């Protein structure tokens, strides 16, 4: 894993925490919005560390670009004067809110720590290294799903991640296994849904080359999934966005003619 990746993780994590606090603490919404933009960039950095390259770009484009421009535009348009901002006096419900926020955080943190222990992570690393050796020796390992690993596979380097991802896809396309424990069981198990069903199993196996489904976290696997398994939610999103456009226009218009 090296020296730089943890360093970047801590930088991005601390940055994200500090800018998130800034968003809710400062009085002027303009400064909130600017802090939130910086926060989204830190999130994009974290996504890159998690090998979600495509989502990191989308985060910057959609959140940092589109959504925050919308927020800033509204803030500038309203041009709130000081008295309209209202005073930020201390109130009793602050205590209740902060206490319940801390309670949620400690509850979530404690349950995460209870499940993921340091020994579990160490055990997972060893198990993962063992499986990777088998892959390098050319064995057809049934599966390298992280769910079988008690710790975390997130400390794989980029090459290890890619090898594991491609090994899963290869095993799956060759009909050898069910990479994610029944996740793809919706149709015939032996026919990968994301491949043209007309191809025979042998023809498919001949076609399988590493990288055929694209690299982990990049545009290709996401787009393949979006127009295959997730095509209905994808189309519904289009309707949702259309409804949002029309709704926003009608609500914001001064008078509907």
């Amino acid at each position, binding site marked *: *894993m090296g020296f730089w990746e943890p360093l970047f993780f801590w930088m991005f994590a601390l940055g*994200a*925490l500090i800018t*998130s606090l800034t*968003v*809710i603490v400062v009085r002027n*919404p303009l400064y*909130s*919005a600017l802090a*939130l933009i910086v*926060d*989204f960039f830190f999130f994009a950095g974290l996504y890159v*560390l*998690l090998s*979600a390259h*495509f*989502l990191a770009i*989308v*985060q910057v484009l*959609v*959140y940092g670009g589109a959504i925050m421009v919308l*927020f800033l535009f*509204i803030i500038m348009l*309203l041009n709130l004067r000081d008295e*309209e*901002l*209202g005073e930020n006096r201390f109130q009793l*419900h*602050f205590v*209740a*809110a902060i206490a*319940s*926020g801390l309670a949620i*955080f400690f509850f*979530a*943190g404690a349950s*995460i*720590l209870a499940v993921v222990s340091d020994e579990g992570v160490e055990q997972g690393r060893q198990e993962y290294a063992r499986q990777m050796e088998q892959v390098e020796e050319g064995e057809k390992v049934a599966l390298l*799903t*992280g769910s079988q*690993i008690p*710790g*975390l596979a*997130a400390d794989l380097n980029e090459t290890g991640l890619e090898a594991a*991802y491609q090994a*899963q896809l290869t095993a799956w396309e060759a009909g050898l296994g069910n990479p*994610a424990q029944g996740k793809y069981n919706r149709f015939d198990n032996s026919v990968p849904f994301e491949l043209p069903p007309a191809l025979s199993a042998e023809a498919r196996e001949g076609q399988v080359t590493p990288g055929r489904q694209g690299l*982990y976290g990049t545009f290709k696997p*996401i787009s393949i*999934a979006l127009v295959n398994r*997730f095509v209905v*939610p994808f189309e519904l999103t289009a309707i*949702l*966005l259309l*409804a*949002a456009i029309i*709704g*926003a226009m009608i*609500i914001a218009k*001064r008078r509907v003619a």
Partner: protein
Amino acid sequence: MSWEPTLAHYLILSAAIFSIGMIGVMVRRNAIILFMSIELMLNAVNLTFIAFSRYRIDMDGHIFAFFVMAVAAAEAAVALAIVLHVFRHKRSVNVDEMQQLQY
């Protein structure tokens, strides 16, 4: 906890930012900052999706995070239009003064 980031690090970071967003929603009265806090919470959830995706070495979490982003964009557009409309009527974006919505 180790120095090197693991799944737990990402989950706890995400829980912390979600809590910050939740406190923001409960404490702040400015409608615009309230929506920004909601964006913070959505982002924290996205981080969890992507961390688990990385952990399981599959990409379904990425797709879900993608849908969350689309919904967040739609929500922001409609919410800000409502804020704009309310501001025209009341000259205020304080959610405590938006009580006519309940009638």
